[in-house]
């Protein structure tokens, strides 16, 4: 982040300018009709800086994240394409990274991925040829050295902004800041964290990230979930590994009637976001929910983060397409 440089993406431009960034996760879809992706993304147009397209999230197959990213680009939304090590070996990952870039994707987020046993195809063969740190370094090699990891030349290297994930809340918590540093060393330029309900833990993680210099070397976007019901919070607590949902969070949502739980969830998310915004070293927020659009846009509104900055770097498909 030291020397000024041309932004690699719209998200990169926002981060370089020092403005507080907001990203959100696209609702997964399970059909072959592009209208479904466009519909899921519609509320997010202009509401956030970039939108994550997940890669078979929670080990359930959904529409390809690269295809979804291209469909977002067609609507002028900047995608962040996620890639996991679960379903592809190093050949397929490098091929798909190039393919995504050729379609106009300029942000990638590279991670290990939930195990197949967490999904609806637990009998599948997991791949894990690489781990997330290997994948980060390989993406960096492709971009900066212009070769595959084998050393074979690329005719036109990708220009991605490279992102990683980290979970400040999962054991061993004392090792998490070191792992963050390792991901940055491997090549990560921005980091999105796992969902934060436990604000105190997040504060401690950020304090360590600032002390170690990690927060200077990569932009850290804190993950926040907008629970639309008590059941949603319970689901995260009971079924999603590595998410720390304090008992008081669940109780607070259960304490209001069903028809007002969404309001309460938005209020809760806004409170968490406000605390996070005050923490030194946090560069932005990454918002997640079920039926993402409406609730996420409400949170961005309540935080006074609308409108999003206008950038000179526009999200667009390479052919010019139908993007705005």
């Amino acid at each position, binding site marked *: 982040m030291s020397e000024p440089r041309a932004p690699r993406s719209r998200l990169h431009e926002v981060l370089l300018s020092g403005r507080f960034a907001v990203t959100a996760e696209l609702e997964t879809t399970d059909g072959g009709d592009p209208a479904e992706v466009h519909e899921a993304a519609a509320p997010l147009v202009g509401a956030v800086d970039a939108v994550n397209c997940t890669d078979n999230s929670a080990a359930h197959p959904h529409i390809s994240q690269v295809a979804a990213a291209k469909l977002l680009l067609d609507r002028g939304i900047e995608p962040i394409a996620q890639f996991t*090590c*679960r379903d592809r070996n*190093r050949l397929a990952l490098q091929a798909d990274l190039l393919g995504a870039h050729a379609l106009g994707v300029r942000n990638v987020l590279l*991670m*290990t991925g*939930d*195990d197949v*046993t*967490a999904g609806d195809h637990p009998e599948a063969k*997991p791949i*894990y*040829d*690489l*781990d*997330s*740190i*290997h994948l980060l*370094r*390989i993406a*960096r*090699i492709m971009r900066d*050295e212009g*070769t*595959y*990891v*084998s*050393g074979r030349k690329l005719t036109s290297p990708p220009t991605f902004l490279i992102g990683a*994930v*980290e*979970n400040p*809340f*999962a*054991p*061993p918590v*004392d*090792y998490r800041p*070191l*792992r963050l*540093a*390792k991901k940055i*060393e*491997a090549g990560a330029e921005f980091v999105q964290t*796992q969902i934060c309900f436990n604000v105190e833990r997040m504060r401690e993680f950020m304090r360590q990230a600032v002390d170690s210099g990690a927060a200077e070397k990569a932009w850290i976007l804190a993950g926040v979930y907008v629970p639309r019901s008590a059941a949603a919070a319970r689901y995260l607590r009971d079924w999603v*590994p*590595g998410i*720390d949902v304090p008992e008081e969070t669940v109780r607070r949502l259960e304490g209001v009637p069903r028809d007002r739980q969404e309001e309460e969830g938005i209020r809760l998310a806004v409170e968490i976001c406000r605390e996070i915004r005050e923490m030194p070293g946090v560069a932005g927020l990454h918002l997640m929910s079920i039926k993402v659009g409406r609730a996420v846009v409400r949170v961005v509104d309540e935080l006074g983060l609308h409108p999003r900055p206008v950038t000179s770097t526009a999200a667009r498909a390479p052919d010019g397409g139908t993007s705005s």
Partner: protein
Amino acid sequence: MADRLDRRPPQTAPEPRGFGRALLVLEKEIKEEIYDCRMCGQCILHSTGMSCPMRCPKSLRNGPCGGVMIDGSCEVLPDRPCVWVQAWEGSRRLPVWRSHMEHLNKPVDWRLQETSSWENLLSRRDRHAPAAWAAYEQRSAR
């Protein structure tokens, strides 16, 4: 048995003879007994607090995934502690190699499965990395 989940790939290396064979048998006997070693042939126990990373269902070589349960158990095998939680705790107890937990370990060479990491250490075979990976590592070490 769920707690013996074993996802190691098939052996493709030829069976060694003579000295190599003796080394392989010895290493396997000792390390399987002590570390529940999975014979990847490129041992990095020194940078994992002596906890074999190939026991991780995701074969992670550079630290824990984000799915570790809040109580420190594995997301895939909830009855077992996360291999990397053990690695972190083990590394804190080691008199040496503590900082090796920060090593950026290269991708696995799956061809070495069921070969002796001791022989590969002696022959320097375990230093081999994909060309661009090795070049990048060399450049950043300077």
